[in-house]
């Protein structure tokens, strides 16, 4: 543990800062290979229809049009992050308003738009279904009758017995029926959470250029270049190695950008035109047809003993997957947030299930702890309702049920390094929980979240350059989280060289082993450990080489601040003949391999190491209008080493405000299959004038799986705010909202109905 480090734990500004504030940082839409054409996509105006005919010939009349493509030209090409169930362009059936039907590439985007308007498509409307519960009824229109033909299906996750069912996940512990039988009180509630957009401000963008050798060059707004490469290859039916994805900055992800989405269309257009093709979604298209979060209907039932112990819990989440399952990246083609249905509480008998159902709506994808915010809203609202039914203080009730060191959580994972109680106590204190509220119609609400740190594969390559500086090549692009600066800090710390002597380079998909990209709170852990292992290998090689140069056994050398010393007592000496700097070593080591270290890791998922969040909202409700103002918000987290406090706090700040947006305003409402909020004036992201006073409390912990025992923070921040606000509203004015977002109108109606 580098307790005295000036690098690890220091507020180091991002290494890419100057590029980002000056406009020099390049994003996909900023790249223009010579001759690049702009492409636009014609989309279905119907939620469910058969394509009777397409006549795209008139599109060629518009000056500047260089390629025209319809689904009929590429029949059978489907795409998906894992499950390939979405046509690259629809050729027979469209399944949501916004489904892709045809595309045009032209000299300008305006020309491409005009050409699209000349394409004639005849549709025969089919019955459509938008509500996931209705879609599960036996007489509902069937979206994918030919489901079994799709590629890459893993049969065990599918649910052929559920109409329009895509996939099902379950978790259980103990005997849930026996648990309920034992309970003195059983409470059940149902919650509704609408679909929301991730709200990254860089719309999806992709460029495909086919070079003279036939190599497919790609730039894409994807946090997972390897994922995008492999998805594109599969949809085209080619080998991934034929594609090179160039690293580039990504303007926000939050789970919504690890896909190849429109890259296959760009490829076919580029091939036809013989020129590079760029597809940038408009924000309207983002809201209409990218991959928002799943709309969810969640029923939760808990059995409680009179003394306040929870003994059984059942949760069923119906997640609306939309028209396709293509946007889910995992083999289970599902969202797993329901695993946290038990929260940080000890419940011995549980059964949780998450069911993904097809409807004629925009395909749903991942959004910062997929399913987590939905399930937490249900579970932590439900927690307050239980406490109130028992006549207990909601904080006391939580304290009574929290997991302790060595306890199992509600899905049977034994937890170590548990700081649930300390985290909640810290939040209560910071929120002045036990003090009187500042005024009438004020309320406070708590919600908690528990989660493990992500893991998985990563790699790193380190080289000592000729000048003695060190370059680390990482396969991971920066989507905003700041991983490159974390890597710079780790290299600086371990190599004992100044930060400015460390360069971070992102490798492309040719030069690095496959990487999963950023996501699921994994990257500091996985990429950080890859760096540590590569450093270890490098240091071994350097020591070997230094020994050769200095004429000593490697173990006779000491190393301090970038210099090897030959010294029998291991101490530092000023004798120049017996010291060797990294630059001197490099100068005498022509073979760069002797000063390069590499590592490829597969970090195990340590589900037993939990992170805890306790968040408390303080709100004021205008009882005449229902208007909610969140005045103050406390976010408490148990953390171990915080490698970069600026980046760490940035995750908390952004996650809390995303969570509050979910709580209060964000709603990708669909009416008759059409998204009603098609621009950012209607779909309201919080602005700088909308944020509450935020107080962060970091509770000391240790033993995280990351470098320097670091835990994780990204998805610890955004799951609990909706329930915290709902609980605060209930505390303020005595109404319980079970539907998001908690608009002023919903509070007003609830007050009227009271």
């Amino acid at each position, binding site marked *: 543990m580098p307790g005295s480090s000036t690098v690890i734990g220091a507020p180091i500004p991002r290494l890419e800062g100057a590029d980002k*504030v*000056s406009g020099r940082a390049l994003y996909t839409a900023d790249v223009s290979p010579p001759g690049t054409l702009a492409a636009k996509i014609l989309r279905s105006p119907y939620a469910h229809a058969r394509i009777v005919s397409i006549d795209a010939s008139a599109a060629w009349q518009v000056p500047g049009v260089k390629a025209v493509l319809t689904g009929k030209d590429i029949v059978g090409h489907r795409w998906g992050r894992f499950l390939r169930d979405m046509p690259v362009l629809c050729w027979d059936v469209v399944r949501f308003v916004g489904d892709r039907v045809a595309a045009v590439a032209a000299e300008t985007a305006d020309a491409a738009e005009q050409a699209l308007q000349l394409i004639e498509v005849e549709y025969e409307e089919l019955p459509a279904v938008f509500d996931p519960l209705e879609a599960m009824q036996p007489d509902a229109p069937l979206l994918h009758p030919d489901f079994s033909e799709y590629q890459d299906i893993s049969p065990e996750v599918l649910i052929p017995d559920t109409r329009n069912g895509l996939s099902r996940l379950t978790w259980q512990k103990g005997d849930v029926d026996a648990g309920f039988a034992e309970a003195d009180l059983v409470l059940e509630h149902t919650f509704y959470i609408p679909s929301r957009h991730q709200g990254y*401000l860089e719309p999806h963008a992709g460029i495909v250029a086919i070079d003279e050798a036939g190599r497919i060059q790609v730039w894409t707004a994807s946090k997972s270049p390897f994922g995008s490469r492999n998805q594109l290859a599969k949809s085209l039916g080619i080998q991934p190695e034929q594609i090179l994805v160039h690293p580039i900055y990504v*303007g926000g*992800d939050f789970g919504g950008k690890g896909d190849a989405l429109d890259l296959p269309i760009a490829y076919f257009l580029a091939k036809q035109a013989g020129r590079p093709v760029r597809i940038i979604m408009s924000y309207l298209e983002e809201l209409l047809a990218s991959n928002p979060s799943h709309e969810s209907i969640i029923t939760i039932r808990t059995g409680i003993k009179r003394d306040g112990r929870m003994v059984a819990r059942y949760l069923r989440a119906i997640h609306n997957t939309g028209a396709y399952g293509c946007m889910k990246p995992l083999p289970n083609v599902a969202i797993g947030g329901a695993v946290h249905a038990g929260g940080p509480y000890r419940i011995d008998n549980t059964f949780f299930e998450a069911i993904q159902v097809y409807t004629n709506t925009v395909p749903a994808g991942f959004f910062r702890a997929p399913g987590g915010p939905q399930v937490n809203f249900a579970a932590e609202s439900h927690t307050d309702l239980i406490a109130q039914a028992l006549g207990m203080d909601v904080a006391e009730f939580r304290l009574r049920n929290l997991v302790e060191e060595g306890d199992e959580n509600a899905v049977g994972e034994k937890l170590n390094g548990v700081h649930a109680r300390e985290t909640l106590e810290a939040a209560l204190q910071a929120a002045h929980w036990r003090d009187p509220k500042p005024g009438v119609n004020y309320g406070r609400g708590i919600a908690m979240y528990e989660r493990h740190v992500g893991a998985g594969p990563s790699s790193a390559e380190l080289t000592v350059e000729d000048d003695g500086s060190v370059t680390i090549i990482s396969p991971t692009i920066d989507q905003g989280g*700041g991983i490159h600066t974390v890597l710079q800090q780790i290299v600086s710390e371990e190599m004992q060289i100044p930060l400015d002597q460390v360069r971070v380079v992102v490798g492309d998909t040719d030069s690095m082993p496959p990487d999963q990209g950023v996501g699921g709170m994994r990257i500091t852990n996985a990429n950080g450990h890859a760096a540590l292992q590569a450093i270890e290998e490098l240091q071994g090689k350097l020591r070997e080489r230094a020994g050769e140069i200095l004429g000593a056994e490697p173990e006779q050398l000491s190393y301090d601040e970038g210099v090897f010393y030959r010294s029998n007592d291991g101490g530092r000496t000023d004798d120049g003949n017996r010291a060797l700097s990294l630059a001197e070593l490099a100068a005498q080591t022509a073979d760069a391999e002797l000063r390069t270290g590499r590592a490829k890791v597969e970090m195990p998922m340590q589900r037993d190491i939990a992170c805890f969040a306790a968040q408390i909202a303080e709100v004021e409700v205008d009882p005449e209008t229902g208007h909610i103002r969140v005045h103050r918000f406390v976010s408490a987290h148990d953390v171990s080493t915080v490698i970069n406090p*600026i980046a760490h706090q940035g995750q908390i700040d*952004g996650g809390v405000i995303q969570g509050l947006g979910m709580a209060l305003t964000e709603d990708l409402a669909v009416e008759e299959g059409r998204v009603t909020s098609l*621009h*950012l004036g209607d779909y309201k992201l919080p602005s700088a004038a909308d944020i509450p006073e935020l107080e962060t409390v970091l509770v000391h912990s240790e033993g995280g799986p990351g470098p320097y025992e670091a835990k994780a923070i990204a998805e610890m921040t955004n799951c609990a705010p909706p329930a915290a606000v709902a609980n605060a509203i209930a505390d303020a004015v005595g109404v319980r909202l079970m539907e998001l977002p908690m608009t002023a109108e919903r509070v007003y109606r609830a007050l009227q109905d009271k």
Partner: protein
Amino acid sequence: MSEITLRINGKQHREDVASNRMLVDFLRYDLGLTGTKESCSVGVCGACTVLVDGRMVSSCLTLAISLDGAEVTTVEGLASETGLSKVQESFVKYGGYQCGICTPGQVVSAYALLQENPHPSEDEVKDWMMGNLCRCTGYYKIIESVMKAGGAE
């Protein structure tokens, strides 16, 4: 196509533009000034903010052809040869950005604020900057960056 004459970041330009060319496209695709970003395309998000005659505008709602004779400043024009401007330095130091896509617009807006009001209060910063959306930071560090650039302790 019509010819327009304008100054961009202090440099005189004489350019042919189509009537329907938006300023954001003109800057990005005709002049290669890709620091200005486009996101919402309806004037809400502020990613495309530039200064026209010293006042911030949405370049996604401004026709290039309407700027004959105008003085345009983009994010590329804020830094000098000697380095980043004070407000840019502040964004770097205090972490007023994450993914960076909204950052050019944030920086240009903050620069315009400090030109008009060198020592803004926190409420003044929030009121001015609320036209620049950011999904990463929750705004706290953006506000801190602007306040610090404005001399706040």
